[in-house]
């Protein structure tokens, strides 16, 4: 299966290991990501002000790119890109007056009709591949792992953009179960990590990181998995700031779930980009 793919800025830079591991894992499942020939930054945060059409143009332009290549769906990996494209698409479909204005403003582009479906890889794996099919392709038992699945905010909220039940999701746990990987029941799995505040309020994010990692550790987890490059950065890199203040703090690797998925499906460690992880988890994952 081939599917149009929107990467976003961060997957080409600090989260290259997310993209590489997703491509490698999907290949085992016979899915080929076809990157859009042209794309631009989605804007990262969906604009919530009712009159702000300007910041909704960037995500919509990417959906126009999908139509230009005759696509009807687009797959995202980054939770923030997913949420921004998804919310802009829903707004565009619902507000006829605004969508006409936006099309008029982008008069050099073909008109967009709101007809692209925005998918996140987790929902895609669940709904279009099927976890039972994934289970059949598992090659490696990752017996040493106890994963704390971390959803964060943007896969689940607001409700209309959610890929699962906002308050009681299970897609991560179900995926890991199909891989034969153990998970813990992580109470902070859908709490905010502090997001972009990591730029100007390091302490605020570090304190949340400390709480989350300590709790995950206390209930038996030895690794945290996410699908958001900002959560990944915050929860892993801010552990350095925590360690500076709390010397007895015990660090924990934070990975993209696709790195675990890839390992379970038999992808070699050299193809999963572990060198970009601050705390290299490959020994823990591969058990040697």
């Amino acid at each position, binding site marked *: 299966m081939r599917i149009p793919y929107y990467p*976003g*800025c*961060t997957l080409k*830079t*600090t*989260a290259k290991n997310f993209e590489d591991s997703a491509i490698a894992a999907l290949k085992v499942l016979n899915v080929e990501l076809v990157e859009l020939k042209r794309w631009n*930054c989605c*804007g*990262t*945060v969906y*604009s*919530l*002000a*009712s*009159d*702000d059409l300007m*910041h909704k143009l960037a995500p919509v332009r990417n959906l126009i790119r999908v139509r230009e290549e005759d696509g009807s769906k687009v797959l995202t990996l*980054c939770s*923030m890109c997913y949420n921004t494209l998804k919310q802009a698409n829903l707004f565009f479909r619902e507000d006829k007056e605004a969508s006409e204005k936006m099309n008029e403003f982008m008069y050099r582009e073909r008109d967009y009709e709101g007809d692209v479906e925005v998918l996140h890889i987790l929902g895609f794996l669940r709904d279009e591949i099927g976890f039972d099919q994934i289970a059949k392709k598992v090659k490696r038992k990752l017996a040493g792992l106890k994963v704390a699945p971390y959803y964060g*905010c943007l896969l*689940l*909220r*607001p*409700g209309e953009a959610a890929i699962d039940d*906002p*308050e009681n999701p299970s897609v991560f746990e179900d995926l890991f179960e199909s891989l034969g990987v153990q998970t813990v029941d992580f109470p902070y799995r859908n*709490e*905010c990590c*502090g*997001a*972009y*505040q*990591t*730029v*100007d309020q390091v302490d*605020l994010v570090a304190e*949340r990181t400390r709480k989350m990692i300590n709790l995950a550790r206390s209930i038996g987890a030895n690794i945290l998995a996410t699908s958001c*490059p*900002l959560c990944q*950065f915050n929860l892993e*890199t801010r552990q350095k700031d925590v360690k500076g203040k709390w010397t007895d703090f015990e660090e924990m690797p934070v990975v993209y779930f696709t790195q675990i998925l890839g390992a379970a499906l038999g992808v070699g460690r050299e193809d999963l980009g572990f060198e970009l992880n601050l705390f290299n988890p490959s020994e823990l994952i591969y058990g040697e």
Partner: protein
Amino acid sequence: MQELIDKVAELSGQNLYGCYQCGKCSGGCPSVWQMDILPNEVIRLVQTKRVDDALNSKTIWICASCFTCTVRCPRGIDLAKIMEALRQIHLRRNVDHIDIKKVAQGEINELPPIALVGNFRKQTA
């Protein structure tokens, strides 16, 4: 003052008077311990014509649009949008909330692009 209240209502698209101050938003807000006033107090300040106090609070900048309150409000009020409306009113006076030249000096090459773009989108005019 009425003009400001109308602006909050318009930008957020929310019925400000629908809120009956149950406090569920504040109860579940993951950032509440870092705020100076509670999320439900922000909406109360707007209801009672004290928009300036809401505008001058730290709370509207601590809120990171996590949408927890949005999915939980029993009155269907999207408080994340009210927070955004207040930030927008501030930023549209052409005043940045952060000084780009000063933030993240040591880390600018390590921060993910989504962190920088998101931060500047939310906190600069």
